[in-house]
């Protein structure tokens, strides 16, 4: 009997110790003792284990006793003690914080708060701002910013078209990464998808501009949600408004009308780039009554020939520093520029009163240049039947977009040329007319989203951009070459080669995609 009592007492003490430990650990887990969340998890697990062990412990306490006297006062007292211990533990676990100290000290830091910054992009063409958050797809992506260029009656070898674009970070956070890439073929959803229901097709709000082949992967996205489907065996031709799907899973979201549809298999070859050609019609010819492209039997849009012939350049000019990111003169082009300038089909006009016949000069004063002139280039100046040839100063003759002077070797005009004279950089035209590499199609296939142009901050005209910079487009209000805004000049040119009749009467449609990331 004494042994039995001792055994029960020992077991009771062990059980009380386990209960107390569970209680302390539970209190610690609440954070009252300043432990970490991980500690709390551990405490929770241990406490849970301890609590879970109570029935076993109870059986352990009770099982060795051959005589079960449920009605004895000792057992009843034990039960009450156990229940009280469990209740104390539970109270401590739930609401017992701060009740286990005698001496206390406390400080409080009320009113703390945290907030997230913003990262938004402004695509500014002229005076028109276009914010990334203004897009219909509600995901800080705006695909509706102003069109950049629209030359409509281009002839081979004639001056191209150029425009400027300013990209601004309008947010409160710096963008560490700033990239430029070709858009990829896309459309928008005309009929909403039902969550949980597998679609058999995607209805589009307008006809496809790029065919989707069987097996192509298309992504439907809206407000940060997305899902990828596989194009069905029939594929979808240019102009199609329905894309058949195969083995489509149930929609993971109720994608609404105007959700974005993108062909992730696009921009692989010149035939499926974002840039695509159509032939002009009587309704779209640039000169009323002119022969449209669709009347010419030798013109075909197959393979997007104009996209594959027209040259594209993107040159940055921020705070007076230039760099050719895309086009002839960019890294990877046949003739990378050490001066930071793209090759452009530059023509210019004299400013002011022009030049006087017989008076030597070493500087051409010109209206703000719409292109670059490389030191050493040969220029012609023509007015009516008069024409002179001029060479730029090989050491000082670099002239960039917007410059108003060009350093030349001493030239004595044979005629008093006025502002009506046309100055042409024949070296630049010759270089571009032989260029079959820096085309819009090449940009699309080389600079798709998986391999964008990373727009590091500029340093100087003659050095590479800073690829180690941690900020590429600073938060709003910041300054410098990685400040909150950077300006780019985008241009196109149709080079003159021997036979280009197959390029008559075509319209190439293309875009640029700008992306920043925290």
């Amino acid at each position: 009997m004494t042994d039995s009592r001792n055994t029960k007492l020992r077991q009771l003490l062990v059980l009380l110790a386990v209960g107390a430990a569970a209680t302390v650990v539970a209190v610690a887990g609440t954070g009252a003792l300043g432990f970490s969340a991980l500690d709390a998890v551990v405490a929770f697990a241990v406490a849970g284990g301890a609590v879970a062990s109570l029935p076993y412990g109870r059986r352990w306490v009770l099982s060795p006793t051959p005589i079960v006297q449920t009605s004895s006062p000792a057992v009843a007292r034990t039960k009450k003690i156990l229940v009280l211990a469990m209740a104390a533990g539970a109270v401590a676990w739930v609401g017992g914080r701060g009740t286990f100290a005698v001496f206390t000290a406390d400080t409080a830091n009320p009113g703390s708060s945290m907030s997230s910054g913003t990262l938004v992009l402004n695509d500014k063409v002229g005076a028109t701002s276009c914010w990334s958050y203004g897009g219909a797809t509600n995901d800080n992506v705006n695909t509706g910013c102003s069109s950049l260029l629209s030359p409509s009656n281009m002839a081979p070898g004639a001056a191209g078209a150029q425009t400027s674009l300013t990209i601004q970070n309008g947010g409160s956070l710096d963008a560490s990464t700033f990239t430029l890439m070709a858009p990829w073929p896309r459309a928008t959803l005309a009929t909403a998808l039902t969550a949980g229901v597998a679609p058999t097709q995607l209805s589009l709000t307008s006809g496809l501009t790029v065919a989707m082949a069987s097996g192509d992967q298309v992504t439907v996205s809206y407000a940060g949600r997305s899902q990828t489907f596989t194009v069905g065996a029939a594929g979808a031709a240019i102009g199609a408004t329905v894309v058949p799907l195969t083995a489509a899973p149930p929609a993971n979201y109720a994608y609404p009308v105007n959700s974005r549809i993108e062909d992730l298999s696009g921009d692989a070859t010149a035939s499926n780039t974002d840039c695509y050609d159509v032939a002009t019609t009587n309704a779209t010819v640039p000169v009323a009554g002119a022969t449209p492209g669709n009347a010419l039997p030798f013109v075909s849009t197959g393979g997007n020939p104009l996209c594959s012939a027209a040259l594209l350049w993107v040159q940055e000019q921020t705070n007076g520093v230039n760099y050719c990111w895309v086009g002839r003169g960019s890294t990877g082009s046949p003739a990378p520029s050490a001066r930071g300038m793209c090759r452009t089909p530059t023509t210019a006009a004299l400013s002011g009163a022009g030049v006087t016949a017989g008076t030597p000069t070493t500087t051409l004063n010109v209206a703000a240049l719409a292109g670059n002139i490389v030191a050493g280039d040969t220029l012609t100046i023509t007015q009516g039947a008069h024409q002179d040839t001029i060479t730029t100063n090989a050491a000082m003759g670099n002239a960039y977009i917007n410059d108003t002077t060009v350093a030349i070797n001493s030239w004595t005009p044979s005629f008093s040329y006025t502002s009506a004279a046309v100055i042409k950089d024949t070296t630049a035209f010759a270089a571009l007319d032989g260029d079959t590499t820096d085309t819009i199609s090449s940009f699309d296939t080389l600079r798709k989203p998986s391999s964008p142009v990373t727009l590091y901050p500029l340093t100087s005209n003659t050095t590479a951009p800073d690829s180690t910079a941690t900020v590429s487009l600073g938060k709003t209000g910041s300054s410098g070459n990685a400040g909150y805004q950077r300006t780019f000049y985008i241009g196109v040119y149709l080079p003159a080669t021997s036979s280009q009749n197959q390029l008559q009467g075509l319209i190439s449609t293309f875009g640029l995609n700008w992306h920043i990331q925290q």
Partner: protein
Amino acid sequence: MKLALLAVMAVGGVCSFAVPGVYAVFSAETRNLPSKAGSGTLTMDLVVGGGSPCYSYNGPASPGNVNTSCDALATYTPSAELYPGEPKTVTVTVRNDGSLPGSDLLLYMPGGCSPVSTGDAPAPGTGNPCTAGGMQLYVEETTPGGPKCWFPAAAGACSFTSDLATFAAKTTLATALDLGAGPAAQQTRTFTIGLQIPSTADNTYQGRGASFTLDWHLNS
């Protein structure tokens, strides 16, 4: 107890796999609406006399924007056959049907000139109208601003002072007669081609003719 442990382990497993997904960053993106770059067209048509337009892009020689089947200036019909000193003039209207201006109009004679017999003369002569002193030719523009003689080059209206043989040497674009700029888009230029057997021609030119092609070439 085993279930509890398994549950804890499962939670740990889920955490270890889920953690990489929480490091997303803010991003912003804009895309410019599609830009459009359109090429113009440069097409032309010829109207010979009162005939129908002959479009450069609509002939059997297409797809090169070259039509080699436009109307002849003259044919070997008895009514069209010439006496010595009798001029034959044909009006040719060149129209630019495209949207681009023509920077340069050229005229040349690919293949030169070949003498032929008319076929309706019982005893044709042996004279060669394609040689010097043979058939005479001029090219005169009548619009705009009055006549301008392009071949042989002279101010004002043309006269028969040069021969077909001289022009027949212009067999390529490189040696072509340069008719200057234009026509502009949707505009026309009108020319008169004059042909004549010299009034001094002898009987060796009876029943003889000249076969040649005139090629009108317009550059943008």
